[in-house]
């Protein structure tokens, strides 16, 4: 019987099989940020186990609240910083070099096809875009990952999602994944790997694939994953050119991870996106999704563009397309958080930051920012935010506030009109 990509990755990293359902995997990349790592660090210290299994496999960043806003967050930053220095972790990104983890780490070429990746952050599934098995874990799993370089998982069952047709102008990966989550519900992919295939995925850039995989967790999935191909090889080429004689050879090598034709899937779903409209959430769960036409007219107070879902350069370009030469509505405040310093610098060079600022946006440093209501852009009671983030849970961006999730294009159109609106009408 053939294997899925997830099964192939598991087989290549198998350390132990305590039961037929449970495996222990060797981990290629252990990623850390300042919210979920400090308690692991202090616990290891308290136990006299202040060790790291392999410093070259650890990546760390301060991203959720940056620069620190109070003593507590300054302390979290200090703990992870001191630890990184103590263990000589090269790939630690401090203030000035830091950005949103799931945008920064791919930029640095840390993720490769066939890798196993864990992080104390549920949106780790983003990195499945590279054909890696990338899963979010809790602090204890992270702690053991740091100490031993292993993690336990249950053997992977995969749902295959084939995306066909072609996306209309104005419709993007964010709209596709919101629609998929609506179809599956927040519990529809629990304990499953979501494998995204089909011509639409093959035609997506790496950034679009990251948006797709980023929200796999919102359907409950263990991870999302795309098959690595030429698009993957081109993105990674600066980092892998010493390993392969040519991009063609890299592409050929990547195929060893592809799911076999006779691999078994627990569920198959086919989605033709040709008629798909932009999607928007309406309630307090990511599966409460409606087409933008049904949400048209919903007034908003704040528009947030950024996050590990949609804070990359293509997202900024998309929003700028609508914002160019326009002003945002008087009842709206707009906030842009470019996800990394590189995105920020590139946006400056392309004149995008000027477009945002002239439209009336506040531009922040690279950070998770408003997404979690932990630092800046917090909503007041009764306020409404149109956001390119990934969660609209009750109270997430601020107690008593509500978040409507959407694509950067829809968010930009919403900012201009002062209410949720179909961006295709402004193109």
């Amino acid at each position, binding site marked *: 019987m053939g294997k899925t990509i997830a099964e192939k990755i598991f087989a290549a990293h198998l350390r132990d099989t305590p039961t037929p359902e449970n495996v222990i995997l060797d981990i290629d990349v252990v990623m850390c940020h300042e919210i979920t790592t400090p308690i692991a660090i202090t616990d290891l210290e308290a136990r006299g186990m202040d060790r790291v299994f392999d410093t070259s496999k650890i990546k760390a960043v301060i991203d959720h609240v940056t620069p620190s806003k109070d003593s507590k967050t300054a302390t979290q930053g200090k703990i992870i910083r001191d630890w990184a220095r103590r263990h000589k972790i090269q790939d630690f990104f401090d203030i000035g070099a830091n950005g949103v983890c799931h945008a920064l780490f791919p930029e640095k070429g840390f993720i490769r096809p066939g890798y196993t990746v864990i992080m104390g952050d549920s949106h780790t599934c983003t990195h499945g875009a590279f054909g890696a098995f990338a899963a979010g874990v809790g602090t204890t799993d992270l702690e053991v990952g740091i100490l031993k370089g292993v993690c336990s998982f249950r053997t992977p069952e995969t749902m295959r999602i084939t995306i066909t047709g072609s996306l209309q102008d104005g419709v993007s990966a964010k709209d596709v994944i919101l629609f998929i989550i609506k179809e599956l519900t927040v519990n529809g992919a629990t304990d499953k790997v979501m494998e995204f295939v089909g011509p639409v995925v093959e035609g997506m850039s790496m950034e679009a694939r990251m948006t797709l995989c980023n929200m796999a967790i919102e359907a*409950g999935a263990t991870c999302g994953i795309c098959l690595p191909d030429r698009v993957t090889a081109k993105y990674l080429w600066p980092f892998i050119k010493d390993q392969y004689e040519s991009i063609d050879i890299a592409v050929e090598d990547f195929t060893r991870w592809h799911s076999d034709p006779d691999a078994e899937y627990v569920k198959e779903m086919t989605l033709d996106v040709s008629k798909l409209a932009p999607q928007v959430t309406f309630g307090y769960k990511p599966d409460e999704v409606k087409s933008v036409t049904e949400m048209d007219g919903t007034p908003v107070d704040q528009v947030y563009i950024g996050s590990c879902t949609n804070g990359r350069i293509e997202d900024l370009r998309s929003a700028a397309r609508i914002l160019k030469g326009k002003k945002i509505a008087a009842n709206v405040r707009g906030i842009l958080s470019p996800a990394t310093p590189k995105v920020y610098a590139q946006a400056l060079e392309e004149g995008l930051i000027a477009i945002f600022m002239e439209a009336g946006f506040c531009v922040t440093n690279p950070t998770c920012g408003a997404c979690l209501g932990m630092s800046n852009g917090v909503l007041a009671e009764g306020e409404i935010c149109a956001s390119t983030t990934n969660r609209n849970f009750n109270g997430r961006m601020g107690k008593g506030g509500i978040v409507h999730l959407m694509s950067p294009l829809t968010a930009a159109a919403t900012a201009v009109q002062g209410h949720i609106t179909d961006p295709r009408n402004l193109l």
Partner: protein
Amino acid sequence: MKEFGGKALFLDRNDINTDEIIPAKYLTENTKMALQSFILEDLKLGGFDPRKDIEGKGVIITRANFGCGSSREHAVWVFEVNDINVVIAESFARIFRQNMYNCGMLAIELPKKDIETLFGLGEAVKISVDLGACTITAQGDKKVVIPFKLNEFDKKLVEAGGWLAYADKNY
């Protein structure tokens, strides 16, 4: 190994997420104990008051997809520091469930009909857990004994007191 059992807190809703269990703004705390009073602060559930309803409880009984959303292990710790070491649900979100066992706590999945039975036992229900026999005894309006499945690996984690202890010995 932890002690499992006690008075039940019924949370009659699906998809209770970890942001509701412990809002992100509290994730800047440096110790697990500091989370204690924030438990279930943002839970959207009619009739539920976290300031009154948690007191004296040792077990949560709830519906499907409990603990969905963020991977924050703080959602498990906030139960732990409130002396709740067992959650019984129709189903769990993957990361939350793993975090429970990683901390040596019990995330027990029961078929829908058994969850219905528990919800039907009235308001004051006491739960005891027999790990050896893999049964739950629930004493409410009447007494019921319900079997549950405990995976061998999960059992080892609970007996070891968590994943760190287990991994340290084995890997």
